[in-house]
C-alpha cells in the first residue's frame, strides 16, 4: 500500500462545474486498488513547492478570480515547468489550461500574461462554446474516445505546431472551434476545456494519470477495476452525440 498526495491549487477561487469530481475520481480509484490518497488545498497564501506532490490539479474560475490566480502564480510559478519536464502529472481545466500559455487577450483587448510554459495564446471570443463534446484522444499511443462538457469563451490557438493536442474533435468545438484540436498533452500534463466532470466518465484518462503517479513512486498499479458503470455513462453521452440513443 502506498500513500499518495495531490495538490489542489486555488480550490476556493478556481472551482467551477464540478471540478472536485475529478479529484474524487482519482482518490477513489487509488483506494479501490488498496492505496491511500490525500488531497491538499493550496491557496494564495501558500508557497507552491509542487515537487512534494504526486499530482497537481487546477480547475476553472470566473474572470475576476482567474485574474487573482494569474498574478499569484506568475510570482510563484517559475519552478513548476521544471517539475512538468520531470514528469509531474498535472491536470489543468479551462482557465487553468489557458494560464499555461503565453497570454490571454480579453474581449476589451486587455492582455493578461500567462505562465508561458507553452507557446499558445487564448483570445476571448463570442459566442461562448457550450455543449457536450466527444473527442478522440491520443494517450500513451492509444486512441481513446473521451467525452465531457465544454463551456468557454476563450479560443486557444497553438503558435508552436509541435504542440500536441489532447485529441481531435469528433463532435463539439475544442480549442477554438476551427482547427479540430482539443486540449494539450505534454509528458504527464493534460490541459483541456472538458469538464463534466472529465475523469469519472473517462476512466482511461484517469488511469493514465494514476499510472504516471505510480510509476514515479515505483509502485505497480495492476489491479483492473470494473468500469461498467463508467463505460455506460461514457457511451450514453457518446451515442447521444453521434445520434443514436440508448
Amino acid at each position: 500500500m502506498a500513500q499518495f498526495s495531490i495538490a489542489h491549487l486555488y480550490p476556493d477561487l478556481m472551482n467551477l462545474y464540478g471540478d472536485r469530481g475529478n479529484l474524487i475520481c482519482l482518490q477513489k480509484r487509488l483506494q479501490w486498488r488498496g492505496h491511500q490518497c490525500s488531497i491538499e488545498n493550496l491557496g494564495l497564501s501558500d508557497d507552491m513547492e509542487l515537487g512534494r506532490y504526486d499530482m497537481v490539479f487546477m480547475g476553472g474560475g470566473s474572470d475576476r478570480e482567474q485574474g487573482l490566480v494569474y498574478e499569484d502564480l506568475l510570482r510563484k510559478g517559475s519552478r513548476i515547468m521544471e517539475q512538468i519536464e520531470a514528469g509531474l502529472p498535472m491536470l489543468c481545466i479551462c482557465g487553468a489550461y489557458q494560464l499555461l500559455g503565453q497570454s490571454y487577450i480579453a474581449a476589451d483587448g486587455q492582455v493578461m500574461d500567462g505562465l508561458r510554459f507553452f507557446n499558445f495564446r487564448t483570445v476571448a471570443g463570442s459566442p461562448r462554446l457550450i455543449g457536450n463534446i466527444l473527442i478522440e484522444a491520443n494517450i500513451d499511443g492509444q486512441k481513446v474516445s473521451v467525452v465531457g462538457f465544454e463551456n468557454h469563451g476563450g479560443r486557444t490557438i497553438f503558435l508552436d505546431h509541435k504542440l500536441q493536442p489532447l485529441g481531435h474533435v469528433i463532435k463539439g468545438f475544442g480549442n477554438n472551434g476551427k482547427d479540430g484540436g482539443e486540449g494539450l498533452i505534454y509528458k504527464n500534463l493534460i490541459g483541456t476545456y472538458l469538464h463534466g466532470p472529465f475523469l469519472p466518465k473517462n476512466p482511461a484518462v484517469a488511469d493514465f494519470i494514476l499510472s504516471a503517479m505510480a510509476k514515479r513512486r515505483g509502485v505497480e498499479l495492476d489491479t483492473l477495476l470494473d468500469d461498467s458503470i463508467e463505460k455506460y455513462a461514457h457511451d450514453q453521452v457518446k451515442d447521444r452525440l453521434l445520434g443514436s440513443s440508448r
Partner: protein
Amino acid sequence: MKRLKIILAIMLGKLLIRLSRLLGNQGSNFPGAWGLRIYPGLLREMASRIRREIVVVTGTNGKTTTSNMIAAVLREQGYSVIHNRAGANMLPGIATAFIEQNNVLGLKEFDYALLETDEATIPALLREVKPRMMLITNFFRDQLDRYGELDRIITVINESLKDQIIKLILNGDDPLSLCFTSSGAQSIAYFGFEPTRYDVLDNRESREGRFCVCCGSELDYSRYHYAQLGEYSCQNCGNRNPEIEFKGQDLELTDKIILRVKDLRLESPYQGFYNAYNILAAAAVAKSLGMSDEAIRNAIHDYRPRAGRMEEFSIDSKRVVLILVKNPIGLNQSLSAVKDDINPKSVFFALNDNAADGRDISWIWDADLENLALEEHNIRKVVCSGIRSGDIAVRFKYTGFDTSLIMIESDLEAGICDALNCPVSVIYVLSTYTALFDCRKILLKLQKRSGQHPLIQPVRGQVVD
C-alpha cells in the same frame, strides 16, 4: 348569545382542522366555512382584535412568496402575525387562519394580519375587514382570460376600494396598475425596477399586445423587464409609467438575487426576475409599514426557498416522496431529508439535461453526497434513470455505494417500479425539472392501481402559487 356563538364557531372550526389533519388533508377551507356558517360575523369580530394593521396581498403572480416574505419581516421585527395558508385565499381559508391561530374564546390579540387574497375575493373581504394597506403584485393576463375576466375583476376591486381609507402598493412597471387612481381617501406608492442588464429591448418580440388603460391604443415599450412589466408609453394619450417611489436598483441575478431599494441592499437565496419583483414588493410594503432596514435585510436574507416540491404518495402501503432537484444546494437539502429518515429506503433519481434542466449536469458533483452510502442511512437500492442515467450512476458509485446496489434503468416507469420492488418502506423519487411531471403521473397511476385512496399532500411547505 353572540359570544357563545363565536366560541361555538371557533371550537367547531378547531375541531374540524384537527379532524382533517388526521385524515391527511390540509384542512384549510371547510373549517372556516363552517365557522362562518355558525357565526357570519366571525371574521369581522376576530379582525377587530388586530392591534396594528391588516395588510392584504393580492395579484396574479407571486402572492404566496411575497406575503411569506412580508410575514418573515414582521416576525423578525418581533410582531405577532396572523397569516393564511398559501392557496387558502378566499374567505373560508382566511377564516380558518384566524380560527387556527386564535384561542377558543377568540380573544387573542395579534399585531398584524397578513391576508393573501384571491383577486376576485377582494370585494367580499373588504366588506368584513378594514385593511389599511393593500399590495397588488401584478395583473397578468393568461390564456384563461379570454372573456375579459381580468378587466371585470379590476373594475370590482376599484369599486370596492371607493370608500376605503387605504394605502395601495402597486407595481409601477405593470401598465394595468394605472387602472387604480388615488381618489379621496386612498394613497398610492409604486414599486418598480430601474433599467437592468437583464432587460429585453426588442419591441418586435412576439409578445401579446398591451393596451393603454386610458385610451385603448397599443402601448410602446422601450424595455421589458419581465413579461409585460417594463417601461412603456402611449403614443396616443401620453400615458406612461408612474413616478416610482420604491426603485429596485443594481439588480443582480446569479444563483441568488441582489438588489438595492432606497439605499437598502437586499440579498436573497431565491432566483429569477419574478422573484426579484416579489422581494421588491415585500420590501416596499415592509418599508411602508415602518419596519427597520435591518429587519427587512435579515428576513429577506434568511427566507429560504423550499428544497422543491415535496409530494407524498402511497403505493402498495409504501410511502413514496417525490422531490424536485435542480442544483447542488437543493440536492443537499433534499438528501438531508433522506438521511434523516431512519426507515429502510430506496432512492430513485431521474437526471435529465434538457434546456429547462440545464444542459450541463456537472452540478451533481458539487453536491455533497459523500457520506450518503454509510450503512446508518439505510439506503438499500439506488435506481438511476432519465436521459443521463449513466452520469448519476457514476456519481453514486463514487460516493461509495457498492455497485451491486446501483441499478441503471433509463425508462422512468420501469425505474420507479424497480425502486418500489425491493424490501423497503420508503421510496425517495428525486427528479430534475423535465422528468418531474412524468414521474408524478406515473406515481399517481401506480397509487390508483394499488387501490389506495389518493392521499397526496405536501410533506412540508406548500405548493407554490
